[in-house]
């Protein structure tokens, strides 16, 4: 790892001030992506601003939605009775990110700020039609993701919390890469009174996306039978050593069927 400066911010204002005073600072959440990246010398920030003491870990019921603080760890989401009752699909998703040690450190805010194209949480935010709250504004999921590892966040903007509306039913099913366990394809299906939303992670060249064709099919008939073979186009899907775009297209259809069957 290159040399760097470490600062533990006391609160959000302190964190923003520390980042602004650095030439190329980075916010540090759980560090489950950032620290391995630094170890590989793939990044060289001159300052790491740790957000762990900023009081951003919480899970609250807001009636029609749940609000999760940005520094809430995957293990806390996975073990929350409130989340289990409101959005069991999210419990399942959080309980299957990485491994136990990653879940003991990794955070929802860190995952969403990083926007890894194979991360799980982006699919939940998009399918649930959630909102990202920062110190200056609230960003709808539709406007938040901006391509692989890119988001609408400004350099000094910190996610405070995420609001996730409670669906009638939902499920998340992923096909993990056999080695990395990241999603090769992950599909989050959420059914609301005003329609079905299907978000796909792990597959798109521009990161997470909504599968509008699948949503239309499920709005007409909310059943696994509604998803026909060949319904998903391979246009815009990643093709790499792990899977071709065609195979990913097939997996999107299959994971969607499984998600519909698993919806609770």
């Amino acid at each position, binding site marked *: 790892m290159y040399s760097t400066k470490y600062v533990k911010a006391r609160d959000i204002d302190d964190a923003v001030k520390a980042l602004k005073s650095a030439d190329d600072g980075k916010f540090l959440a759980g*560090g489950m992506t950032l620290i391995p990246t630094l170890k590989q010398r793939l990044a060289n920030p001159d300052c790491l601003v740790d957000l762990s003491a900023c009081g951003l870990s919480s899970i609250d019921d807001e009636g029609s939605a749940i609000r999760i603080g940005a520094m809430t760890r995957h293990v806390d989401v996975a073990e929350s009775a409130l989340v289990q009752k409101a959005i069991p699909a999210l419990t399942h998703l959080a309980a299957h990110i990485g*491994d136990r040690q990653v879940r003991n450190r990794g955070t929802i805010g860190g995952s969403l700020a990083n926007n890894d194209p194979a991360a799980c949480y982006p699919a939940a935010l998009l399918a649930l039609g959630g909102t990202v709250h920062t110190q200056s504004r609230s960003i709808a999921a539709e406007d938040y993701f901006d391509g692989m590892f890119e988001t609408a966040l400004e350099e000094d903007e910190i996610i405070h919390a995420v609001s996730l509306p409670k669906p009638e039913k939902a499920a998340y099913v992923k096909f993990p890469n056999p080695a990395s366990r990241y999603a090769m394809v992950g599909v989050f299906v959420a059914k609301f009174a005003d329609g079905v939303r299907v978000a796909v992670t792990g597959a798109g060249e521009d990161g997470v996306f909504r599968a509008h064709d699948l949503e239309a099919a499920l709005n007409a008939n909310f059943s696994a039978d509604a998803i026909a073979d060949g319904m998903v186009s391979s246009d815009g899907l990643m093709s790499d050593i792990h899977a071709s775009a065609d195979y990913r297209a097939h997996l999107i259809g299959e994971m969607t069927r499984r998600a519909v069957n698993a919806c609770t």
Partner: protein
Amino acid sequence: MPTVAMKVNGANVVHDIPDNTLLVSFLRETMGLTGTHVGCDTSQCGACIVHVNGESIKSCSILAAQLDGADVTTIEGIANGDELHPMQQAFHENHGLQCGFCTPGMVMSAIELVEKNKNLSEREIREGLEGNICRCTGYHNIVKSVQDAATRMGG
């Protein structure tokens, strides 16, 4: 250089260390606690797992400075004098290792797993050890060891 104070295996320690010191480097090089291993350098193998405030984490993926004030337990800190921890004893008796390199991480990971749930199914044990890679055993005796330890630990 920040000053880091933490409790390691019950003892209070204070050291000045470079900001970019990983916990595993702090433990091995500053403290001389070489039971915690570095197996992969890519945060995947779990040989470096220790407990921080009772939870298992990969010590290669966290800065020591992040843990100022924390309570850290390593593989050196779990036996009671000459009496092995039940998880260590179970690994010993069930031959839950071959080369032994991954064992410290396996044991630390498995202790937290069993402490959270003493009635684990084989599948839950295998899933629970997803963050630990062993290149020798094929995992079979490791799973047996954890099952045995769960019984010894009150399951």
